């Protein structure tokens, strides 16, 4: 009955500030976001350096060492399409607070990332998709099985895989929402750990509504067994939902100050 694990999403090259800091090897904006997220309750930080085709290896090593040395070896999810950059990052990664997470593998072209994780004693986010969005849960669960088998063959423990059912945008794919929640439930019933990009669900919605959509989605998904999410820990509504659900589910003990922890 572990607490819900928040993987902070805010060190992402899609943010102009982070993009610029990564390009210029400027520590300050990256560390600021790292510290804010840890303070707000992130257990892991996702580090997305983009495709990083040119200097990915050097860049990933720089950012991993930077964040871990300044933030008490906070555990990280290494997020890039560049496999060599992930491997390079793992080489300099300090495991004292948790294994690195490879972000991510899927059941298609990126399935080899499972082997990459296995070879490096890392965890891996296993996205239950191959090409595009799975048509239904039969397809999702087939991918889930395929990746689980691949991992077992490679000698991984199931608990080192975080299965991502692929959260979908509400505005536009409303009819898919319950299906995704049901996928979380099926994976949880198999005893598997789960995760997902929470803010996908609120893409395109007005800014003031995004925390509401994210918070209610995570609460319903936690009821279905969701064990972690890639989310914005600085979003107060989302964190309140997660802390409250953890408590209702008996994963943390109630105290009047529970929201302040």
């Amino acid at each position, binding site marked *: 009955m572990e*607490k819900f694990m928040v993987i902070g999403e805010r060190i992402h090259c899609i943010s102009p500030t982070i993009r610029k800091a990564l390009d210029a090897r400027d520590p300050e904006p990256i560390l600021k976001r790292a510290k804010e997220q840890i303070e707000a309750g992130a257990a892991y930080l996702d580090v997305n350096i983009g495709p990083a085709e040119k200097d990915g290896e050097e860049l990933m090593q720089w950012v991993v060492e930077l964040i871990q040395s300044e933030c008490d070896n906070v555990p990280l999810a290494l997020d890039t399409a560049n496999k060599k950059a992930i491997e390079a990052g793992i080489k300099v990664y300090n495991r004292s607070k948790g294994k690195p997470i490879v972000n991510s593998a899927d059941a298609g072209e990126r399935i080899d990332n499972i082997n990459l994780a296995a070879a490096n004693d890392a965890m891996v986010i296993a996205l239950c998709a191959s090409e595009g969005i799975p048509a239904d849960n039969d397809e999702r669960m087939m991918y889930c099985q395929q990746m689980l088998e691949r991992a077992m063959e490679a000698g991984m423990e199931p608990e080192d895989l975080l299965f991502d059912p692929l959260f979908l945008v509400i505005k536009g794919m409303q009819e898919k929402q319950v299906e995704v929640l049901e996928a979380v439930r099926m994976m949880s019933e198999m005893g598997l750990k789960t995760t997902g990009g929470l803010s996908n669900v609120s893409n395109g919605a007005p800014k003031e509504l995004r925390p509401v959509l994210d918070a209610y989605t995570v609460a319903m998904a936690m009821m279905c067994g969701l064990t972690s999410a890639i989310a914005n820990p600085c979003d107060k509504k989302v964190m309140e939902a997660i802390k409250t659900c953890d408590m209702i589910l008996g994963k943390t*003990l109630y*105290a*009047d100050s529970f929201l302040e*922890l």
Partner: protein
Amino acid sequence: MAYKKAAKKYSGEIREVTLGSGDKAVAIGGKNVLPIHSFDGNVGNPPKIGLEIVDIVPEDWHDDLKKIYDGVLEDTAEWAKFAVDNFAPDFICLRFAGADPDGKNKSVEECVETAKKVAAAVDLPLVIAGTKNVEKDEKLFSAVAEALAGENVLILSAREENYKTVGAAGALAYKHKIAAETSVDINLAKQLNILMNQLGVQNEDLVMNVGSAAVGYGFEYLSSTMDRIILAALGQNDSTLQMPIITPVSTETWTVKESAASEDDEPAWGSSIERAIQMEVATAAAVLVSGADAIIVRHPKSLATMKTFISNMLGSGLN
């Protein structure tokens, strides 16, 4: 297939807290498994047992118990020294029963003098217990904390009503350890630790007194509360509950009827002092297996029995 021993692993562990100073300092806590589950992992420091003494001649104590301390009861420092020299407890709990406004109502200044003399007479760690009157204890603890600066005593205890003063004087100003006391209330136990943290008291300086009960007097509730606290501390890695636990046993067990009833009133129950020791030992042993890291008893025989119990339970050959 060969038998494979499965060990229960937890993600959290109970912090180690050191009481006292110098060679005789004792560490409590440090376990990362359930109490005495040495087959699962590290049981930390063996539980420590302290003897209770009081700052006045304890009129309400059993005559046979007072007889043991004949000649030293009038002088608390002599009493402390006698107890240490003859019975080798792990620590001394000095309880200021005489400061109680409903009793002798001794002044804070008198208590400070007593505390200083006791601290000078013994080199074991001291646990300073109060009157249960929150206003008096607040003043008493603040003054004793100042007078005993450097001794690293455990102040027993800070409660919801007075934690700010007791925490600020005891831990922040004079660097002692503080026991956060709640009355068998798991949510308040956690909350009081959080409030202490918010006051600035470090977890390393905190111990919990989560309440006490004699066996047969709501003990199951105490035991289940301790279980849940330890399971949250270990299993959920809840840092707000990873303090070692101290449980005062004597103040509960000597007043229940099994201990207090006279042999005239209950001729079938046998020796009253034997009954009282049995109640104290039964409760102390039950509290120990429920997870207490330090226990306070009154009778030297209870102390000796518990020390034997601990060394037998945690000694070699049990793994």
